[in-house]
C-alpha cells in the first residue's frame, strides 16, 4: 500500500536523522570542549555564549506557531569570579552529557544533580542543576532528551502501535503497546524507539489517569481506531516529543481532551504551541493538534455539573487573555466564556449521566465536530 510505503520511507529517514543528530551533538560538544581547551592553553579565560532566556527575549513566532528566543545572548565567562562556578557547572554538564550520549545511558534530572557530587562540582539543590541543564539546551539548541537527560515520568500510552527499541540491550526488540491494559510509561526508551507500525488513525491525549483507564476499559482504542495517551496534567516534554513524532512520522491527527477549566485549555495550548519555558527549543510542538474539550461552551450544552472557579482560576484567565496565542478563534472565545460563567467542570462530571456517557455520547459527538475546525 502506498500509505505504508511512505511510512517506511519516513522511518528510514528518521533513523538516519537520529544517528546524524547524535553525531552532531557529540561533535558540537567536542567543539565547545576544544574551544575551552584552547583558551586555557593560550592563558585566556574561556567563556560560553548563552541565548538569553529572560521574558524580554521571548517572542511569539507566528510562522512557527510557538514561542522562540530572540537574538539576545549573555556571556558566561570564567574571568568573572561570580560566574566562574556556574561556568564550571555548565562545562561539567557538557562533559557529562557527552558521556551519556556516548554510552547511550539515560539519566533523570535528579540523577544529574547527584552525579555532580562525584566530581568536585557542587550544586546547591536540584533547582540549580535543572537550570544549568536548560542553559546547556540553549547553548546547544538541543533538548536535554537528546543528551539523555529525562524528567521523572508520569505519563503513559496505550493502543495498537508497534515500536522497535534502540536503547542499548534492547536494540531491535519490538513491542506492541496494546498488550498491557495499564498502558506503557513514556520514558526515554519509548521516545527513542522507532515507530514501526500502527492501525490507528487518531491520537487522543487525555489530561487524567482515571479517564485514561476508563478509555482503555471502554476500548476506545478499537472503537475509534486510536492511540490513547495520558498526559498526567501538563504534558512532559518526552510526551510532547512522542505526540509530535506520532503526528509527523505516522501522519496521525492529535486531539486533546482536558478538564473544562482554564488549566485544561492551557494544557491543550502547550501541546499545540509549546511553553514559554521551552522557547529555546524547537520540535516539541504539534501545531495541528486540536483541543476537543471540555470547552466552556460544552458545560451548558451538555448540562454538566460544575464547581465555582477560585480567585486564582479567574486571575489565570485574565493572564492568558494577554497571551498572543489566545487572541483569536476558539481559544479566545472559550476563555471569555469561562470568565463569564465563572464555573468549571471536570472530565469526571460526565459520570452524572452514566460511567460510559463520556465515551458513548460526548466523544463521538466532539470527534465529529472536530473534523470541521
Amino acid at each position, binding site marked *: 500500500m502506498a500509505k505504508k510505503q511512505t511510512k517506511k520511507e519516513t522511518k528510514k529517514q528518521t533513523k538516519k536523522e537520529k544517528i546524524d543528530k547524535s553525531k552532531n551533538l557529540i561533535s558540537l*560538544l*567536542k567543539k*565547545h*570542549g*576544544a574551544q*575551552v*581547551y*584552547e583558551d*586555557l*592553553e593560550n*592563558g585566556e*579565560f*574561556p567563556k560560553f555564549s548563552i541565548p538569553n532566556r529572560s521574558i524580554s527575549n521571548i517572542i511569539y513566532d507566528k510562522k512557527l506557531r510557538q514561542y522562540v528566543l530572540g537574538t539576545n545572548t549573555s556571556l558566561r565567562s*570564567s574571568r568573572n*569570579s561570580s560566574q*566562574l*562556578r556556574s*561556568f*564550571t557547572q555548565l*562545562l*561539567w554538564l*557538557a*562533559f557529562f552529557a*557527552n558521556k551519556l550520549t556516548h554510552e547511550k545511558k539515560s539519566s533523570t534530572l535528579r540523577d544529574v544533580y547527584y552525579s555532580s557530587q562525584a*566530581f*568536585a*562540582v557542587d550544586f546547591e539543590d536540584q533547582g540549580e542543576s535543572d537550570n544549568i541543564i536548560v542553559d546547556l539546551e540553549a547553548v546547544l539548541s538541543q533538548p536535554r532528551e537528546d543528551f539523555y537527560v529525562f524528567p521523572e515520568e508520569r505519563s503513559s500510552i496505550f493502543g495498537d502501535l508497534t515500536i522497535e527499541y534502540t536503547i542499548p540491550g534492547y536494540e531491535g526488540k519490538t513491542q506492541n503497546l496494546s498488550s498491557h491494559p495499564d498502558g506503557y510509561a513514556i520514558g526515554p526508551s519509548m521516545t527513542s524507539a522507532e515507530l514501526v507500525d500502527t492501525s490507528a488513525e487518531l491520537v487522543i491525549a487525555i489530561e487524567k489517569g482515571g479517564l485514561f483507564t476508563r478509555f482503555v476499559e471502554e476500548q476506545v482504542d478499537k472503537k475509534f481506531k486510536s492511540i490513547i495517551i495520558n498526559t498526567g496534567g501538563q504534558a512532559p516534554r518526552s510526551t510532547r516529543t512522542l505526540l509530535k513524532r506520532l503526528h509527523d512520522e505516522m501522519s496521525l491527527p492529535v486531539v486533546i481532551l482536558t478538564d473544562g477549566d482554564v488549566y485544561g485549555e492551557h494544557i491543550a495550548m502547550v501541546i499545540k504551541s509549546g511553553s514559554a519555558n521551552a522557547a529555546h527549543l524547537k520540535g516539541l510542538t504539534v501545531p495541528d493538534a486540536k483541543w476537543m474539550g471540555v470547552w466552556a461552551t460544552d458545560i451548558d450544552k451538555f448540562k454538566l455539573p460544575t464547581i465555582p472557579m477560585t480567585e486564582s482560576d479567574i486571575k489565570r484567565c485574565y493572564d492568558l487573555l494577554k497571551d498572543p496565542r489566545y487572541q483569536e478563534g476558539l481559544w479566545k472565545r472559550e476563555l471569555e466564556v469561562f470568565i463569564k460563567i465563572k464555573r468549571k467542570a471536570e472530565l469526571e462530571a460526565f459520570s452524572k449521566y452514566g460511567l460510559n456517557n463520556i465515551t458513548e455520547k460526548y466523544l463521538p459527538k466532539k470527534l465529529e465536530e472536530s473534523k470541521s475546525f
Partner: protein
Amino acid sequence: MSSKEQFNQISPSEFFYRNRDLAGFSNPTRSLYTAVREFVENSLDACDHSGILPNIHMTIKAVDPEKPDPKQYILTVKDNGPGIPSKHVPLAFGTVLYGSKFGLKQARGMFGLGATMAILYGQITTNKAVKVKSNADGKTRFDYEMLLDIQKNKPVILKKQETSSSEKGLSVSICLDGDYSKAGTKIRDYVYQTSLITPYATISFDDPKGEKFHHKAIIRSMPPAPTIIAPHPYGIDVETIRRMLVDTHYQIPNVDDKMIEKVRKELGMSKKKFTYDEIMKKTEKKWKSLTRPVRVVIALMSFLEADFEKLQRIRIEDVDLRNNKLIYWDYSTSQTLVADMDVESHYYKQLANTVQGESLTHFLSKRFQRVGPTAALEFCKFAKFKPETRVGNMTDQELVKLSDALQTYEGFRSPDPTCLAPLGDGPLEKGIERRFEPDFMAVVQRTASAYSGFPFVIEMGIAYGGKIETRGTTVYRFANRIPLLYDEGSDVVLKVVKDTDWNRYKVKNDSAPMIIVSHICSTRVPYKTVGKENVADRPEIEKELRLALQFLSRKLSGYMSKKGQAEMAKKRANLYSKYLPLVAQFCTELSGNKKEPNYKEMIKEETALTNSDGSIEEVKKNG
C-alpha cells in the same frame, strides 16, 4: 460634723514613704536593683570627688536561702572612699533631704536621696536597722545601727561603737525584701556595665548563689573631677532661685571647723580656750576689721551665748526674723533647739541685714555663670527690675517674674561645660578594648553643647568583631557614668541608632557583631521618668548623638570596606584555585586531548593580581 478638712503637714520621709514607687521601689525585683544602684553610685561619687581610685565590694546574701523568692536579702556595699565624719552619719543616713548641694556639677545622683530611700524601703519591708560603718580619718571606725523615725524624719540610734582601724571608707548594709531570681540578670548587667564606663574602678560582687564577679580596674588614672559651678540662667526655676536666696553667702555661713578657725584667727584668739565673755569683749574691739561672714557667726554666738566648743557641736537650721527665733540642731543630744533673739541688739541688725540679702545685679553676677555686671544690668532693663532691688525682700510674684525673664532673655552666653566630667577618649577606648577585645573600634568625644541652660557632652564608642559574641547591634547606654538598663525602647540613643541606615556603612545591622557605647554627661540628664532609665529626645541632644554616631560609622565603614576587599581577594583566589583545575579536567576529556592545558600560571596571576589590588588600596588610604 465639721465641713472643714483637716490638713496635716507631713515630713519628707513620710512623703517618700507614701510615694516610694516614684523612686524605683515599686516591687521586690525593682527595689533590690534600685538599692544596689543607689549604694554603688553613692560610693563611686564619693571616691570620684575625693580623687580616690574606687574599690567597691558588694555582697547580696539571702537571710534564709531555703525560702522561695521574694524573700529577705542583706545588701552590703563597701568602698574605699573618704567615709563620713562620725557626727554626720546619723543625719546622712537617718533623714531624708539632708545636705545641700545647690551648685551644679555632674554627679551620678543628687543629694544622696536614693540611698536614704533604699534604707527606708528596707526598714519598711523588714523592720531591721541599717548598719553603717564609717572611717573618715583613717584612725577610728564608727559603727552605727539606726532606724528612721518616719513621722519626725529623725534618726533613732540603736547602737554606736568605736573601733580603731586604719582602713578608710564606708560600708552600708541593709536588709530588704527582694527577688534575686528575677533581678539577678539586671544586677549582674549593671555591675558589668558600670565597670565598662568606670574603667578606673575595681568592682566585685558576691551574689546570693555563691557566684563571684570581679571586674578589675583597667586604668590607674582617674579622669579629671568635675568642678562645681554656678547654674546658668536658662536652667533655673522659681524653686531653685528661692533655694539660692536662702543659700547666698549673705546668708548664715556654714559653721564648720574651718569657719570657726577663721573666726578665731580674725579675732586673734587661735591658740587657747576662751570663755564666751572673753570672745564678746574682743569682738567689740575688733569689729571694724572683721569680715562679713565672721561678723555673722559672732552675731549667732551672741544669741546662743556660745563659745567655740559649743559652736562646734551645733548646726544652724533657720534664722526666723518674723518670730525672732534662732533654730539649731545639737549634735551632742541629737535634737533641735530654739534660742530667742533680742531685737534691740546690734547683732540682730547684722543678721537681719544678711537675711535681706544683696542687690539683684550683685546676686545675678555673683551667683550665676556667664552673667557679668554689664549683662546683669542689661537684664534688669529687659526684665524691668530696679538693679538695686534687695533679693531677700522680693515677693513670690517678683520671683516668678524673675525666673520667667531669666529664661526668655536671649543675651546670656551659652553654659560653661567645665562642670562636666566625661570619661575621655583614652579611658573609654581602653574600657571597650579590654572588655570586648574587638577587631575594630573607634571612640569620639563631642565638644560641649547645651540644652535649656544645661551643658552636656556626648561620648560614644563603636566596636566590631573580635570577641564580641552578640549578633546584631548591642547598645550600651550610659548617663553620667550610670548604666541605663530598663525601658530602652523609648530612649533617644536607641532612636538614633535605629534611624541610621547601616547598609550605607557596609554593616549588616541584624547580624553584625557590633557594640555601641553611648555616654551622655550633663549637670541634668533629661530623663523621661523618675526611675532614671531612659533619656528624652531633646533636639539638641539628638543632634549631638547623631553627629557622634555618624563620625564613628564613617570610621567603621572604612574598616569594613578594607575588610571586605581583603575577604573578596581571598575568596577570589580560593575560587580560582578550586574551579580552574576542574575546568581544565573537563575540557581535556571533552575535547579528547591527552594532556591537560597549562593553566597553573593563570591561577598564580589571578592570586597575585588581587593581592596587589589590595595593597594599592592601602597606599591610597594612608596617603
